[in-house]
């Protein structure tokens, strides 16, 4: 069974991803024109499961 991300992992992933987006990285999903906040875009990516950021280290088994 795949474990859900904890709230800390989620915010860390979104944080890292939104930094990339804010500095010009291309979003991996279609984003509506009125959404301009990089954090919002990162959240959308996370919710769709396409975020390229993964957690590693002692909390994750993989």
């Amino acid at each position: 069974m795949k474990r859900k991300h904890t709230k800390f992992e989620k915010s860390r992933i979104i944080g890292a991803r939104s930094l990339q987006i804010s500095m010009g990285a291309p979003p991996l999903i279609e984003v509506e024109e009125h959404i301009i906040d990089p954090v919002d875009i990162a959240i959308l990516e996370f919710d769709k499961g396409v975020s390229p950021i993964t957690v590693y280290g002692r909390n994750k088994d993989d």
Partner: protein
Amino acid sequence: MAQKDTINALIRRGVDEDTATKLAEKNYLLGDIQSASKKELIKELGKKKGEDVYKKVSKGKKKKKSRTKKKKDKKKKTKKELKELEIPDKIAPLGDIAKKLIEICDEKGHELPRKTIQDAADKIKEIELPEEDYELMLDLIMDRFESRRVDPMESVGIVGAQSIGEPGTQMTMKTFHYAGVAEVNVTQGLPRMIEVVDARKVPSTPMMEVHLIEEFKHDREKAKRLASDLEVTNLIDVADVEIDMADKEVVIKPDMKKLKSSNIEIEHIMDQLKGVRGIKGDVEKSGKTLKIVLPEDEKKYASLHETIELAKGTKIKGLDGINRAIIRDTGEEFIIYTEGSNLKEALQMELVNIENSSSNSPVEIYNVLGVEGSRNSIIKEALDTLNEQGLEVDVRHIMLVADMMTNEGDIKAIGRHGISGKKTSVLARAAFEITSTHLLRAAIVGEVDKLEGVTENIIVGQPITQGTGAIEVKYMPKKPEA
């Protein structure tokens, strides 16, 4: 010189001088003779004398005898106690319903603790839930269970500290009378909380709650008997003690009513008085009074006064440390509350229910019953003091505190001498108290700080190892699907 000492020692033990000299001249020391076997002595001295010396001097046999006797006595005692004690299984076996629930859990991939399942099974039995609803029930339980879980790396310590500390500011600072029980003074509020958390050896108001065994739960007479057996009764409580100036004796006139109500025999008082060190002279009984007759050369006023004071304070019955015992009728059963506590001895008494009698001192419970008991006691005492003040704190915060205090196998106080003082990190200790001493000592010894805790990392200026700070993240783009 050594020979002379040996001879003297042997003579003192009743060996005649000739034999003693003989032995000493052969360069035997007292110890050798004491530990020598009968055969060796007979060889050395001839049959008759050898046996004689062995009888008088030898240590081995005599000591052994007394030792085995003591052991036997002890064994007898423990055997008797064990008979009444039934050692429970560590965990209760699962019932049929619980087994079924576990099956469903396995099927659905739910992970629930055994206790939760057991509780659920008990509830099912109580409300007679039909079997087809088990699954729904488990789903609901699982939902709740998940939502109450704490994420890994959550700062439970800080949350707990705040959750206990904030309501703690509203606690009273005084000792109050216990509401339910007449005239028992109990430390409450903040001082009590500090006491519990400090793992004080003896609380300022030690108390015991003693339950009667199942059979006599409703028996007022038995409760009264037990209470009077627990409470310390001194001679002065049940008798008039006076000095007879004419005969220069101490006269004890027991109050027969009091004796009867506390179930004490005059002979028992006599025995007790005879056992007191410092009371010289004989205890004599004449009719319903007792007399302490001092030896002829001690018949002075000073020694009379000394004796009377000793006699007054002589403990006739009861357990040491228990000053008062009060019976309380809860409607369901009689419970005895005591002022002062002596759990170890109370639990050995016949009428006491071992299972639910307890003391209010976690340290005492640790000494008598072990860590797990003291952990539960800490939780109970802390929660009770908070609830008494009308403050509601989630158990889990208090459980965390109790776990921190007991997880190393003994009780550790929170504070300088306990947990905070034993942190592995120098920087964390330095941040707590006496900074320079800690740093200096660490420098001299050459300690290494691995920067694993929160405090250290804050001092150094790094993200802390909790919450988001504990998570490491990697950029791993997925390959576009073909």
